[in-house]
């Protein structure tokens, strides 16, 4: 969806179309609320009150935004009680991403076999954000960036599943392949892969460049191991954080491990400068965090 932000009437027909297209086809167009937020954010003098008004118009998004700002991993001592204070705490850069993460799940095609997939993504996102706080923010990766990236990382999967029959079999194969890139296995069976889809979706939702690049390459253990050059330190760090977060969750919950850790684990720990001793500490600490998040 695309609109001329100068025209205040532009959004009315847009919302209609948006609603219609979601109803009819379940496609993920860029949500109108993101357009409106973008319109405000890119003004010379963005106004937090106007932004708050835009966001408050959707009660569920407003509620989720408050919950997000108050989530333990942002580490704020105050609690945001209004949308405006949540916005003010998060800052303009984070707002678009934060809202994108909130609406992402609503607009993607619902697939019965993927319910656990969403819970898992949300969990990886939380732990990635938490992990940044444990090991410190570097290379311009903050908690919220790691959170957004981890949530979007696999959003191409439901779209692949809708588009290509037999995709679940492909997923199983890719998960079990010890040598090839996950995305290479997908490409053997289909003309594209979930990482490219996720990247393009992220781009069209105005996610930061480094996040989109990281989504596109999040299975690329060859480039990751090769070190600098393939993508920015920021993108690299995002990929590693999610990988380590996923592993920590798997260890804490006892759920099975796929081949990704074998391919990327060592490089991820090295890039994040997590020693075996640090990792053991994190393994212990993540249990508390998960319990805390579950209680929240």
């Amino acid at each position, binding site marked *: 969806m695309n609109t001329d*932000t100068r025209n205040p009437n*532009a959004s009315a027909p847009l919302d209609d179309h948006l609603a219609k297209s979601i109803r009819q086809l379940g496609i993920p167009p860029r949500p109108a609320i993101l357009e409106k937020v973008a319109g405000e954010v890119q003004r010379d003098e963005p106004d937090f009150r106007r932004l708050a008004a835009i966001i408050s118009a959707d009660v569920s998004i407003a509620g989720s935004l408050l919950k997000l700002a108050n989530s333990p991993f942002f580490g704020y001592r105050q609690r945001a009680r209004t949308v405006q204070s949540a916005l003010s705490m998060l800052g303009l850069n984070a707002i678009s991403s934060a809202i994108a993460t909130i609406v992402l799940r609503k607009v993607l095609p619902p697939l019965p076999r993927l319910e656990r997939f969403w819970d898992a993504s949300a969990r990886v996102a939380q732990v990635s954000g938490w992990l940044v706080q444990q090991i410190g923010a570097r290379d311009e990766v903050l908690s919220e960036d790691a959170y957004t990236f981890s949530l979007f990382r696999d959003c191409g999967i439901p779209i692949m599943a809708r588009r290509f029959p037999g995709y679940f079999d492909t997923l199983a194969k890719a998960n079990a392949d010890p040598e090839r890139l996950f995305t290479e296995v997908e490409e053997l069976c289909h003309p594209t892969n979930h990482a490219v*889809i996720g990247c393009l979706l992220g781009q069209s939702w105005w996610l930061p460049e480094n996040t989109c690049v990281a989504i596109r390459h999040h299975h690329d253990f060859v480039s990751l191991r090769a070190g600098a050059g393939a993508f920015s330190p920021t993108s690299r760090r995002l990929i590693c954080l999610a990988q380590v977060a996923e592993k920590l969750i798997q260890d804490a919950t006892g759920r099975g491990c796929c081949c990704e850790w074998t391919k990327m684990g060592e490089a991820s720990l090295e890039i994040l400068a997590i020693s075996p001793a640090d990792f053991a500490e994190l393994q212990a600490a993540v249990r508390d965090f998960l319990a805390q998040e579950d209680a929240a």
Partner: protein
Amino acid sequence: MNIRTDGLTGFLDRGECIGEVERLAGEARAANTPFCVLWIGIDRFRQINSSFGHRAGDNVLAKLAHRMKSLAREGDRFGRMGGDEFVILLPGRGVAEAEGTAERLQQALKVPMEIGHVRVRPSGSIGIAQLNTVEPLLHVLERADRAMLAAKRLGGGQYVVSGGEKVPGRFGNPMAQEELTVEGLLHEALETGGLSLHYQPILSAGDGKLEAVEALMRCRVRERNLAPASFIPVAEKTGLIVRLGEWSLMTAARLAQRLGADGAAVKVAVNISRAQLTAPKFCQALHAVLACTDTPADLLELELTESLFMDMSDNVRRNLAAVVEAGLPLAIDDFGTGYSCLAYLKDLPATKIKLDRAFVVGLPEDRKSFAIVRMVTQLARDFGMAVVAEGVETVDQYDCLREAGVTAVQGFLFSRPLPEYQLDQWLQERSGQ
């Protein structure tokens, strides 16, 4: 309220200080007032500590803290971040005032003091950061810290203003804004929703029926329009063109999908750059777009300039074949203005030629242009290709082009490029007629 302070200096302790930054920065942002943080590191303090002992060191810190506090104005807050590092929070003050404070601080710190019988000249490195509108609140503290470290690297006794960050808004630094290049603006557009596509209708020359629309990129950042002539070359040079191109494809495909779902199947034509077409995995992106948007492939047309065919690399060849296999129609853009070489026409799987406006502008008087137009349309007809004339501005030109046999027309005579909502209105008006 129980406020925790540092026993030695009486300043807020670290935790309390962070809470205070959060509160003051939040208030400043809400009220649209400036807020600055000074981060002060005492130079060579470790040396003082190791030469004279910790007790003497503490004594020095207490004295220095006292000097800092003596410069306080109403509303300022003082914190000790640990060891020999302090912060001063300046609500309501912009960078210029903070710099003044930093200079006065440095004067005050530099006054010699006696430790035992030794006279030392302390000094401080100071980092200054002003809250901007784009960052999470606590970043202002981190930036001040980084600026202080930068100041230390200058050799001590200096201050550094946290810079390079974008500081938009009322308190923006005009210098920083001037320094933003088109590239920076493009990046910003990509991350804040500053790009849009406008669509110019392409009509059948015979019955005036809408055949397609061409998507043209527009960029608007910080309430300023960037001309395509200024941002496209920069995008090409920096490689950003690939991302812009992917974004266009996705956005255009959504329009095609939507119009199709509304019952008006209209092709949407998108310009493809050399960088995209030479990339080995171009078609993955193409399929990703189709998968994301559920657009029928034949509604998304790719326009390629003829210069692309001059050096057909293997990648280009493979990509073109894959595009055709995926079912997308191809059009040759700006035909006749490059180093036209007709040989490639024979092998190219294109279904449409877009005749450059250069051949249209002189019509109907310019008989040479007319001869070229007629020759091209004849050739295209024999190849089974359609010919679109671009840049049609007058009725005379239109009549002349029809006489020459072009199959479709595009130009201001029919419509300028329209933002999506106006295209919808345009379509509605036409269907109502």
